[in-house]
């Protein structure tokens, strides 16, 4: 039973689009009364449930095409769910696309009044707000020029000014703040804070983690139409970062593996093992990592030194280790060498190993990109570790005296 202060309640929302190859197919579909299918289906949103309380600011994070806009359109009532239900209480102001509904041939003032009319405000009510709108938009005399003469910045400022001054109970913002310069974004933030303090509920979609963290009380990650539960914004952001890295592709295509040397002794293979996730195949930041190789020498050879380099996909050498214990050893036939780390402490991303064998300054085998693998910093672990950016992740703490 939803309590009184819940203003948006969604239950098992699913939205399936019907994709028609040809405009005529839609008509055929209509007349076939469901006996035949002339379309493909695409599920943009699947089984999404959420409760948003009055006065909360909720963030939705996700990739392009993850269903964010569909969810917002459902909240606004612009789309009807294919199944499930959504109940929204209060007047919604939607900033799904900046200046949608503005007519370029009318002046800023006329458009502002018209947007007010769409929101159900008559002329007298808009008269009372117009000063504030014009002041916020800060476009001077342009307010009485047709909006097609506006720069995109002016357009944005007016659109946000209007949307935020029509006293909505709920405001829905889709990426709108991503445009605009820093100063304007700051003013938008201030305005949003002021509205938040008046009890306005807000739903923000963004892939800018900073904005989500700044504005939102709770957030959820949307991925391929499925949504996590609402959780504190910082947790959701960690989860999103994890998702981003999970879907990063290795960059091998651009630089093929290179190999050179006399091959009097050579690496037969180089492998990585450790705490590998069976699902995504990634190793964990906090888990152990072992680089192992089989080396083969056709004839006996001594004074061999081995080196492993662990490099990030950006080419940064994260770790380089050379074995110093092999001075007196003779290699003949097959040997196995390995290097172990208790925890790699590296941030999420793709890495590769360069394996090098030298004997008395003669390069026996230098194998670039001998092995490639990914590391994933799990969201739960990220909360306890520092590493906003940079490659090294550790447990550290700040101290100020």
């Amino acid at each position, binding site marked *: 039973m939803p309590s009184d202060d819940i203003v948006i309640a969604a239950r098992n929302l699913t939205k399936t689009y019907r994709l028609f190859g040809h405009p005529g197919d839609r008509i055929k579909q209509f007349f076939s009364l469901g006996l035949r299918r002339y379309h493909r289906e695409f599920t943009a949103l699947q089984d999404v449930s959420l409760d948003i309380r009055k006065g909360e600011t909720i963030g939705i994070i996700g990739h392009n095409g993850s269903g964010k806009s569909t969810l917002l359109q459902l909240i606004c009532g*612009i789309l*009807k769910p294919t199944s499930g239900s959504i109940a929204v209480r209060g007047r919604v102001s939607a900033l799904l696309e900046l200046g949608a*509904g503005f007519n370029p041939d009318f002046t800023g003032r006329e458009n502002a009044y*018209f947007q007010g009319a*769409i929101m159900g405000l008559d002329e007298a009510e808009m008269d009372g707000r117009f000063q504030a709108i014009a002041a916020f938009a800060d476009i001077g005399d342009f307010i009485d020029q047709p909006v097609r003469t506006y720069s995109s910045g002016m357009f944005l400022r007016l659109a946000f000014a209007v949307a935020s001054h029509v006293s909505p109970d709920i405001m829905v913002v889709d990426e709108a703040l991503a445009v605009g310069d820093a100063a304007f974004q700051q003013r938008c933030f201030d305005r949003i804070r002021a509205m938040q303090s008046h009890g306005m509920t807000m739903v923000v979609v963004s892939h800018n983690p900073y904005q989500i963290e700044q504005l939102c009380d709770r957030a959820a990650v949307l991925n391929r139409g499925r949504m996590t539960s609402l959780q504190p914004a910082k947790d959701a952001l960690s989860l999103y970062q994890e998702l981003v890295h999970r879907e990063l592709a290795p960059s091998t295509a651009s630089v093929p593996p290179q190999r050179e040397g006399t091959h009097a002794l050579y690496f037969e293979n180089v492998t990585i093992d450790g705490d590998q996730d069976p699902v995504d195949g990634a190793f964990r930041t906090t888990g152990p990592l072992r680089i192992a190789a089989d080396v083969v020498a056709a004839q006996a050879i001594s004074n061999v030194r081995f080196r492993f380099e662990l490099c990030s996909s950006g080419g940064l050498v994260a770790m380089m280790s050379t074995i110093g214990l092999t001075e007196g050893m003779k290699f003949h036939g097959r040997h196995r060498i390995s290097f172990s780390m208790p925890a790699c402490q590296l941030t999420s991303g793709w890495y590769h190993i360069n394996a090098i064998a030298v004997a008395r300054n003669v390069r026996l085998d230098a194998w670039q990109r001998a092995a490639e693998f990914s590391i994933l910093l799990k969201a739960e672990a990220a909360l306890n570790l520092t590493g906003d950016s940079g490659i090294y992740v550790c447990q550290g703490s700040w101290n100020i005296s």
Partner: protein
Amino acid sequence: MSAANPAISIIRLFDHRYLLGQLIKRDVLLRYRGALFGVAWIFLSPLLMLAIFAFVFGHIFQSRWPEQPDGMPFWLMLYSGLIVFNLFAETVSRAPSTVRSQPSYVKKIIFPVEILPLVPLGAAMVHGAFNLLILVIALAWFDHLFTGILLFPLLVIPVLLLGLGLAWFLAAWGVFIKDMSQIVPLFVQMLLFLSPVFYPASAVPVFLQPLYALNPLGATIEAVRAAVLGTSIPWNDWATAFIVGLATTLLGLAFFNHVRDEFADAL
């Protein structure tokens, strides 16, 4: 959650009357914005039209109808019928693109889409009012002004209802079928000649007259013309037209509400 019951959705339309008024105002103003004569065109274009009528039907095609009183210019009778027809024509011709041309109203903002087809109707009524004003002045000039013309706004209601119902229907179809905005003006043109605008209904062959009685446009035009001429108004035919018009409105709105959920997907 959209109201399936047309009666309820008609009541809801009333909630949006201010917004609708603004939309109609914008529509009318936008047509003349930037023009040299500006809004004066709203008056000039029917005046020019009437002048051409006077020239063509007053001097070139000189003709008389049986029910035409002495001294009443023939072209004024044509003109009064044409005012009614134009109300219908403007509403219906523009209907298929009313929703289609505003995808951002459908997909990007929270907007009562069902009022969009009402905008051309409202604009047509504004233009019709100016046409009527010119007609009244012309009738007064020729000393044929009867009190019956006061009934004009009441008498055109069947055509307004018919136009509105078709507008909802066509606006919905227009979203899915782009060709509608090409097809509809052709049909409107056809209707211009199939309705007794340029001839009296009495000139229609007797065996076709029952069919003509079903055309609400014809009955309305005849009724309006009777009012202009000061003769007795054929109320029976008018009542039939009214019922047909009302049914069209309710069916049109019901159809519109039935398919509107798919608009956002189709645009």
